[in-house]
């Protein structure tokens, strides 16, 4: 089966047919444009008529901003080129060229948009802007006719907006087919509703939120059940209502970090997010006498003044007893400020040192006011150990405790 021969015969046939049809000569022919109108309205029928002598074997190349097309003439007494609707529906310039083997003549037709508005295309963004009058949102409006052509330039568009008690209308005019308006924020926060209108046609409602600007300095306070360092109760920190510089309450969720520097210079950090401008943060009471310097920050933007609070020692002293040939160490009773047993969970740290090197550090939590350490004889073999017990900031050392 030879495809090759089929292809060759087809090509030959095509060449022959086209050769026959090309027999007429256009060189000695002449073509004159009869049509005089060069401006139409979109959607109109547009046709170009030519007087001609000689060959009618010509075609027209038409192009506008949407694309190009080749048109064959209707041959009668004249040559009539009907430009298709897909081209004439679009406003703008149509360039045409008459061709035979070479370009014979060319020209332009201007298509005007219709004068009746059909639709008002409107875009707006960003959907939220910052209060203060420097941030703005941009509204873009394009009034269009029923064929989706932008109306002629200098069509009036009215931009209306409402914010709190204000209603405002602005007249703007289209240029290059569209128009825009920058709507600047106000000093208050809230929601701006926007609408545009052109030739009695209204757009739908748009909304833009005006959100608070960056926060300003604020104050903080601390709230606690008692001022004893029992390692159990929780202190709550609160900010005042945080405002931006235009006196708007900052948006919910604004993150405030509270930095606490204790008397050893170590940092503790807690944080809160605002609700109605107030951020709340919590921190556990220390388990020993302590002085806290607290300052809250919205980083890079605002801060509070430092406040100081003091915690008094809750557990003033405790006893340590050894039993079971020193392998059982009982710490307690651990008593709080009214001599009550301290709530469960007070950390007691036992540090076991042998020959100057730390062997192990065991952290236990108190239960019913006591903590028991059991030193496994397999883990801590026979010898001398130094024991250090720390609880509630109090340290007790037992040097050279011997184990069998």
């Amino acid at each position, binding site marked *: 089966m030879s495809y090759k021969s089929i292809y060759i015969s087809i090509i030959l046939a095509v060449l022959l047919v086209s050769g026959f049809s090309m027999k007429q000569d256009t060189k000695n022919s002449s073509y004159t444009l009869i049509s005089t109108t060069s401006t139409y309205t979109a959607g109109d029928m547009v046709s170009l008529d030519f007087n001609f002598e000689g060959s009618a074997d010509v075609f027209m190349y038409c192009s506008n901003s949407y694309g190009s097309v080749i048109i064959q003439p209707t041959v009668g007494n004249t040559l009539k080129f009907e430009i298709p609707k897909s081209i004439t529906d679009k406003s703008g310039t149509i360039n045409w060229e008459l061709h035979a083997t070479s370009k014979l003549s060319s020209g332009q037709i201007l298509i005007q948009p219709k004068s009746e508005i059909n639709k008002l295309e409107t875009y707006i963004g960003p959907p939220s802007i910052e209060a203060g009058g420097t941030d703005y949102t941009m509204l873009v409006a394009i009034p269009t006719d029923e064929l989706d052509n932008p109306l002629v330039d200098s069509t009036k568009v009215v931009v209306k907006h409402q914010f709190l008690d204000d209603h405002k209308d602005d007249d703007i005019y289209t240029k290059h087919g569209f128009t825009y308006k920058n709507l600047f924020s106000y000093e208050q926060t809230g929601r701006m509703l926007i609408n545009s209108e052109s030739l009695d046609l209204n757009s739908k409602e748009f909304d833009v939120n005006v*959100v608070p600007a960056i926060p300003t300095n604020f104050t903080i306070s601390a709230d606690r059940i008692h001022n004893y360092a029992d390692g159990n109760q929780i202190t709550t920190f609160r900010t005042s209502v945080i405002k931006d510089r235009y006196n708007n309450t900052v948006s919910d969720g604004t993150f405030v970090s509270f930095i606490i520097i204790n008397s050893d210079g170590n940092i503790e950090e807690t944080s*809160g997010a605002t609700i109605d401008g107030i951020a709340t943060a919590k921190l556990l009471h220390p388990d020993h006498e302590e002085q806290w310097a607290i300052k809250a920050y919205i*980083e890079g933007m605002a801060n509070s003044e430092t406040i100081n609070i003091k915690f008094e020692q809750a557990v003033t002293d405790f006893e340590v007893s050894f039993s079971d040939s020193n392998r059982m160490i009982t710490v307690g009773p651990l008593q709080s400020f009214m001599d009550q047993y301290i709530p469960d969970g007070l950390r007691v740290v036992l540090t076991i040192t042998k020959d100057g090197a730390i062997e192990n550090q065991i952290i236990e939590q108190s239960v019913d006011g006591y903590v028991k350490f059991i030193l496994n004889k397999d883990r801590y073999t026979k010898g001398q150990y130094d024991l250090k017990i720390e609880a509630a900031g109090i340290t007790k050392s037992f040097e050279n405790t011997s184990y069998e």
Partner: protein
Amino acid sequence: MKNASNKYLIAALLIGLAFHGTSIFFTLETTYDALIHLFFADHYANSWFEPWNYKWYTGFTVMSYPPLVHQSIAALSFIGGLKFGLFSVALIGIILFITGVYRFSLLITSNRTVAGYAAILAVFSSSFVETLHIFGQLPSIIGISVLMHALPEIYNWLKTGRWRYLATSLSLIAVTVTSHHVTPIFGMVFFIFPLIGMVIMDHAKEQVSSLKAVTIKVFISSFFKLLKRIVGFGFSSLFIIIVCILPYWINSKNNPITQVPIPHGSRDNFLEITSSGLVFFLIPWGILLILLPYIFYRFYSKRYLFFGLSITILFILGTGGTTPIPRMVLGETAFNILTLDRFTLWASIMSLPLFGEFTYRFAEGDLKTLIQSKLGAVYHRIAGGVLAGLFLFMTIFTMSLGYFKPSQPQKIKMLPIINFLNQDQHDQWRYMTLGFGDQMAWLAAQTNALSVDGNYHSARRLPELTTRPIERLENSKFKGVEGIGSLQQFLTTPEKYNLKYIFSNDKFYDPILYFCGWQRLRQLENGIMVWEKLNVPPLSSILPKEDVSRWQKLLWGIVPFLTVLIAFLLNVQSVLVSSLKTKVTSLPEYFNFKNDYSKFSRGLLRISHVWSVIMAIIILIGIYQFYIKNESHHSPKNAILAYYDALDFKEFEKAFSLINPESDMSIAQYMLQVSVTDGLLSSYAKLDAISTEIISETEDLASVKVTTDWITPLEKINKIYYRTLVKVDGKWYLQPEEITADLPPDQLYASNKTAYFNQGRRRITTEQTYHEDVLKQPVLEILSAKLVKADQSYAIVGEIQNIDNVPADVVLKGTLYNDADKMLATYNAKYHVKHKLMPKEVSAFRINFEGIAWSKTKDSIPKTFNPDEFTPIELDEQPTKFNLQAAGNVSGSDLFKNTTVSISDLNNETISGYLFNSGTEEVTIPQLLVSYYDENKELMWVDHMFVKDGIRQQRTQAFKYQLQTNSVLTINDDMSNCYVNGLPNTSISDKIVSDRITDHSKETLQSIEHPNFKYLKLEVNSYIGNPN
């Protein structure tokens, strides 16, 4: 006899279809392979002639697997759906196998009764049951079955030289090769070569009239007489094998398997890894192990000599890594690519004729007579009962494996997932499944959405996948460091693969998803959690593919069915004639070589007895060892291992049974203790290794140091426990551990928080989201950023703040350039950033530039697991500049910020302190982000630590952090190429926070005594495993 239907064969077919035909509905879908074949079938059903499949691995070609079985399922699926096709093909496979064994046995033994016995035994043979019901290897079964059908035809051709037989044998070979490529290649070696040997032997026997008289000389002369036919058959079948699946061979040549070998149980040392030994050796051999002396004795008789050699090689190759021989015979490459279980399968199938023969002789032949006369009729009956019992036990045991030790997770309802992917244009992105097992193939077959992952590892293309021995990302937790290592690269830079959705059926992966910046979308009604990543672009509408020429597509689509058609036409006549008995046909050639079943060798009987005793002893020893190893109270070590094993698998009742019964701990109290502990170690850890060291042991007291290695999705945890054990009533028990006693101050407390809800699109429509419904991207500000070098690896460190009024999800992408502005590497921030920021919140970040781990084959893959393993990227040139792109997207999830951090003690090596949870959610995994600053309070480095235990509400958790010792060198701190949401960072910061108070960050630093750094700052990022 001559013209009667074989009752045994008919019985075998009936029983086989009833037994397998009903049970496949309960087994086939949970096998390893069946759903993969279903996926391929779905591909052919949708595009028969187009071999490129976009659904897996960013596209692959189905020309990487012979198509016949898949195309058959696809063709049948037009009648009754994919699963109808699958089960129909499985039924055809069962019929082909039983009849194939019959014909093969008839060929070998020339005895219809024996062949009938073999067919019945084949129905229940454990290797067939395993291949079908556990592995689901349909192409393999059909391939070997058709090959068995081809063997008598080949024999006839070689023996008689009638062209008809050449045509039938080649047509069957063609069907074999289009259903499974490996079967005919190795089948040539292991089945056809010995068959040729047998033909020559038979021919030689005819020359000299007695088998004894066949000498090597006679044999060689017969060989030369038959040489023409042998060579003719050899070359034409080779031609068939190559031509029928020519596109496959072309594809294999163009895309050679350059991947790192994937470990397979069949290559293990079966004595070391007993589970592999069970699955790949004991089960397929089954009762045949007892008959080994008989099988070898018979196959080494003169006529079957070459089968004897063949089965010996198959037997040895099937032992995998137990002996070094298979590795030596096959060579390193082939050993690592082939799965060796197929050799055992073939060996067991090759043994079936002789198994049938043995059964025949035992049940009604000379063996029965011999045993009855020598050992008595009762002995014969008992022995028969024992053998039959063992045989059935192996069958039922194999069948039950899939039930008691399921290889797959529970069956997942796919409909909610398919609906999810179809709605809201979710299939415009790629998805990935986690913890689906082979069911991911079934999901892929049903949806149009594309997956990054896939289930046919030979077709993997991404270097992230081919450089490591993982079959798929989906089950990466079972593949240790390579698995999680691969997975986390996909999770960190999902934009590269347009990966937006993850369907997770395994809680294990939750932490890694969270810390890589993914967020929970919702739980579908089938219990699958959907995770989503923001800021991932959708797939482009045109995806790349590797096209092949049209003739290949046509050949691939037409030839397989054509081979079936031709084989059918060529064989149908003889099959119909022989089964319907329409006319008397002459017996096949091989019926001239009948065996003599009148005198069973006494020596063989004796050896078989000895062998059986040896086997029995080995089994008893094995069982005893198993008991000693697994009896949890037997020794302190056993008790410890059993206890931690039970904890690992969350079998708390079993764990409690190992706690000292004399301690006053009740099961209720124990369960309470276990249930209140959450965290990385107690909820997301798998025990990787455990070793025990007995510190002291007396008669009834022992103390043990237990060293455990736990794998978590985030990092490897090493933990040492000191446990005391007591002996009560001769059994060892563990002493219970203490629990924390912290008592929070409040019984009930209130906490207010800001919650967010993103509508997505406000109008229900399938159109694009309306312009005005698109949320503005939250504005972020990069406060500082610099390129630093630490220990030969480069990183970008800095701080970022959400300066908007809505919470933001943060994606940070860094790119490194050299002096000539050539791009060197790009990567995203992984663990070292808080991915979710409240309005005005700040997070330190670090972007590591990670290479594709072990991308060079010479890099040895570490044996031990370390999910935190970091492979720094290899850069050819010095990076000197960087570009940083920050993208914010509104997110309302994972905004828990109520963990406070307190430093209680610090020295030049460690910082210790505690975390306190003041919120209303339980923190499952707290992460500390530690930023280091120099003396000018300039950020130098960012590090992180996962705290092993969770923090319950209003409680504290202590931490101890080891300070970094490395020194950090600043390469470039020019921030001119920092962008936020595509806009320059400076223009944003100038506009929104024009008068930034720079002192703030400096006031909040903790000073430290450290040679390289002077200040540091701690931040907490909390993962909530179970949000209320």
